[in-house]
C-alpha cells in the first residue's frame, strides 16, 4: 500500500514537472510573442517563469512535499521561462511549438532530478 502510494507520488512529480513547463511556456508565449528582442525576451521570460512557479510551489507543497516541488519548479520557472522567452521572440514559431518545448523541458527536469535523487540517496 505504502509502496504504491510512493509510486503515485513519483508519477505526480513527472506530471507536475510537465504541467509546470507547459504553463510557464504558455504564459511566457502569450506575454512575449510580440517582443522582437531575443535577449530582452529571455530575461523577461526567466522573470515571468520564476514569478509564476512561486504560487504554484506554495499551492502544491502541502500535497506532494516541499522540496520535491520547490527544486524542480525553481529550475523549470527560470530555465523554461528563459528558453521559451527566446523562442517566443522568433516570429515564425507557433504557440504550440513553444508549449511543446515547455512540456518536454519540464518533463526532462523532472527526470534529471529523479535520477539525481536516485544517485544521491544511494551514496
Amino acid at each position, binding site marked *: 500500500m*505504502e509502496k504504491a*502510494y*510512493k509510486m503515485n*507520488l513519483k508519477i505526480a512529480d513527472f506530471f507536475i514537472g510537465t504541467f509546470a513547463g507547459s504553463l510557464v511556456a504558455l504564459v511566457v508565449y502569450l506575454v512575449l510573442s510580440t517582443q522582437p528582442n531575443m535577449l530582452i525576451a529571455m530575461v523577461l521570460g526567466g522573470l515571468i517563469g520564476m514569478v509564476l512557479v*512561486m504560487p504554484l*510551489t*506554495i499551492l*502544491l*507543497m*502541502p*500535497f*506532494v*512535499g*516541499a*522540496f*520535491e*516541488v*520547490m*527544486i524542480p519548479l*525553481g*529550475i523549470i520557472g527560470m530555465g523554461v521561462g528563459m528558453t521559451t522567452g527566446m523562442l517566443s521572440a522568433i516570429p515564425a514559431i507557433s504557440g504550440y511549438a513553444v508549449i511543446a518545448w515547455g512540456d518536454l523541458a519540464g518533463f526532462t527536469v523532472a527526470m534529471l*532530478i529523479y535520477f*539525481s*535523487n536516485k544517485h*544521491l*540517496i544511494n*551514496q
Partner: protein
Amino acid sequence: MKINKKSYDGVARIFDFMRGGDMRRWGPDQRALFKNLKGRVLYIGIGTGQEIVNFPPGLDITAVDLSYAMLTRSHSRVQNYNGRIHRCQMDAQATAFPDNTFDTILTVCVLCSVQQPAICLKELKRVLKPDGELVMFEHVLSKNPVYALILKFMSHITEYLEGTYLDRDTVNNAEMAGFKIHSHKNVYLDIVKALRANH
C-alpha cells in the same frame, strides 16, 4: 522576520496541512531512523506530533516545544502513542535539564527553525549522556549550486511564512558543536538527511 514563540503559535493552525506532503514522503525513512531511539529520549520540537506515528512502541520520551499552541495540538497523538511521552514547553537553546540526562536526543526539522542552531546543538550535547546518541532528521543547504540557489531564494519566503530557513549547514554545525556524525543518509537529494551522531 525574527522567529519566536508567537510566530510558532500562529503557524500551529496550518502546520499539519503544510507538512502533509512531507509526512507522506518521509514516513518509511523516519521509521528506519527512529529504530535507533532507545533509553530515555529527548524529542526536540515535537510540534503537532506528526512524527509520533513513526516511533517504535514502548519508548520513554520527553518532548519539548517552544510553542504552547503546537503542544496543545499534539495532545491526541501523544495520547494514542503506545509508550510514554511527557511534554514540556521549553526553548531548545536553553533547556532546564541537568547535564548527561538523556540516552538519545531526536530532532526532526528543528535545526532549520531555531534562531541559533550552534547554541542549540551545544545545549543538546550538554544534556546528552557521554555514550548517548543524537538522531537528526533534518533538511540542509544542498552542495549542488543549482539546488542551493533555489533553496537560498525560497528560504526568504519560508522564513516569512513559517519561520523555516532552508540554507542551514546542519552537518557542519553539529560537528562544530563537538558531535561526530557516524551515520549519514540522504533521504531526498542531498537536502533532506537522516543523521546519527555521538560525542
